């Protein structure tokens, strides 16, 4: 039995919220630098240079990478032998978000009601998914999701007979329609299978995967590669102003599904792909 105090969770979530909004993921930065070598468009090259400079300025903690410091997403994996002491785990995560966004001078972008639209002024609530597992491990994969790219995400209930070609067509159509809006170069997260909601959750989770860590399943890895090539052949380029760098990565996650269905969700993420793993 492992005991974790809620104060430990609050502190870890708070620090992760701040850090992920000021420090560009080294793999994304590496992605910019690699893309700069191959980018065909002069405008595109200029944008990549500016994004590298933006990362340098943000790393001094003068200002976050992007003013849209996002809605916080937390995927919690908690062992059955872990006991949380001193309060509710959900409350602790929300408190960590609250403190991180206040103390980190991050933008409060959450409205309490989608219709009435009054700001909660502390960037809560974040969205939390729990996964109960064996043992005494505890980890939170935290992300802060900007909405320029979230707004360009789509779902479709394909027919089983649509197969791989149906998935490819839907993903390419989604990225092409999104064009300049999701702030390319983007990360493309795709959930395939399960139910409508499960596919969306898979797509979101795939965005937190380290960049260019391919799927462990051979047929999915080859689909990821095929899609990345096809997306970069669209010509959308950095910021949608033309070029050969439209996406830095394509991540796919799958789940068993029903004999009658092939749910697909495409969740786009901007180049400011902010995520951080907490292990306690």
């Amino acid at each position, binding site marked *: 039995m492992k005991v974790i105090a809620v104060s430990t969770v609050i502190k870890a979530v708070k620090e992760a919220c701040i850090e992920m909004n000021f420090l560009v993921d080294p793999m994304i930065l590496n992605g910019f630098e690699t893309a700069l070598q191959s980018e*065909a*468009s*002069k*405008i595109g090259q*200029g*944008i990549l240079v*500016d*994004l590298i*400079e*933006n990362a340098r*300025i*943000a790393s001094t*903690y*003068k*200002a*976050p*990478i*992007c*003013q*849209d*410091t996002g809605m916080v997403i937390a995927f919690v994996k908690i062992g059955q032998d872990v006991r949380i002491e001193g309060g509710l785990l959900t409350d602790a995560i929300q408190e960590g978000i609250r403190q991180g966004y206040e103390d980190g*001078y*991050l*933008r*409060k*972008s959450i409205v309490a009601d989608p219709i009435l*639209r009054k*700001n909660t*002024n502390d960037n809560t609530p974040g969205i939390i998914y729990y996964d109960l597992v064996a043992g005494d491990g505890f980890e939170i994969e935290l992300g802060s999701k*900007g909405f*320029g790219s979230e*707004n360009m995400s789509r779902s479709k209930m394909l027919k089983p007979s649509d197969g791989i070609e149906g998935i490819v067509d839907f993903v390419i159509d989604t990225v092409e329609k999104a*064009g*300049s*809006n999701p*702030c390319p170069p983007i990360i493309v997260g795709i959930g395939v299978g399960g139910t409508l909601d499960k596919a969306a959750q898979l797509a979101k989770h795939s965005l937190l995967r380290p960049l260019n860590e391919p799927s462990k399943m051979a047929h999915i890895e080859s689909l990821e590669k095929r899609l990345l090539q*096809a997306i970069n*052949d*669209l*010509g*959308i*380029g950095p*910021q*949608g*102003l*033309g*070029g*050969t760098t439209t996406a830095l990565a394509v991540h796919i996650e799958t789940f068993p599904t029903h004999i009658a269905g092939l749910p697909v969700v495409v969740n786009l993420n*901007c*180049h*400011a792909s902010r995520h951080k793993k907490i292990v306690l």
Partner: protein
Amino acid sequence: MDKIRITTPLTEDVIKKLHAGDRVLISGKIFTARDAAHQKMVALIDRAEPLPVDFEGQVIYYAGPSPARPGEVIGACGPTTSYRMDDLTEPLLKIGLKGMIGKGDRNAHIITCIQDYGGVYFAAIGGAGALISESIKSSTIIAFEELGAEALRCLEVIDMPAIVVIDTLGNNLYHTEPQKYKKEPI
């Protein structure tokens, strides 16, 4: 490519000389407004009530900055996606607004409006909020303070980097440039 220095408010002469693809450095006063502030301003125009600012020749920046850290003028202040303002833009162009800074393509109606009202649309780099904030020298809330990040602000900028993406003739970089790099599927 040389960058063109321009100063707000924008005159007809300056706008005519700007072409899609030009890189510009903007100086002077610009005004931040996004979804909620646009809704409020359009409602004021509909009711024939006065606006908090005279927009004649002015430039609106679609942006909602993050809070300033102590000792800083502003937090990150990059552009938000412009299409959300497409249905709320013409009333402002009608009363003299000349420039818009944002990111992403505009709809066909707004592109026609940009031609008809003699305006110009600039793109700033989305997700470069820290870089852009370096060119902002002051920030003052002038209306709708209750909207927080979405309040109407006056920013004084020096050499704020942007790209002309839709010029006053309707040339649109979002349409012309990607075509050059598109490869047909094998």
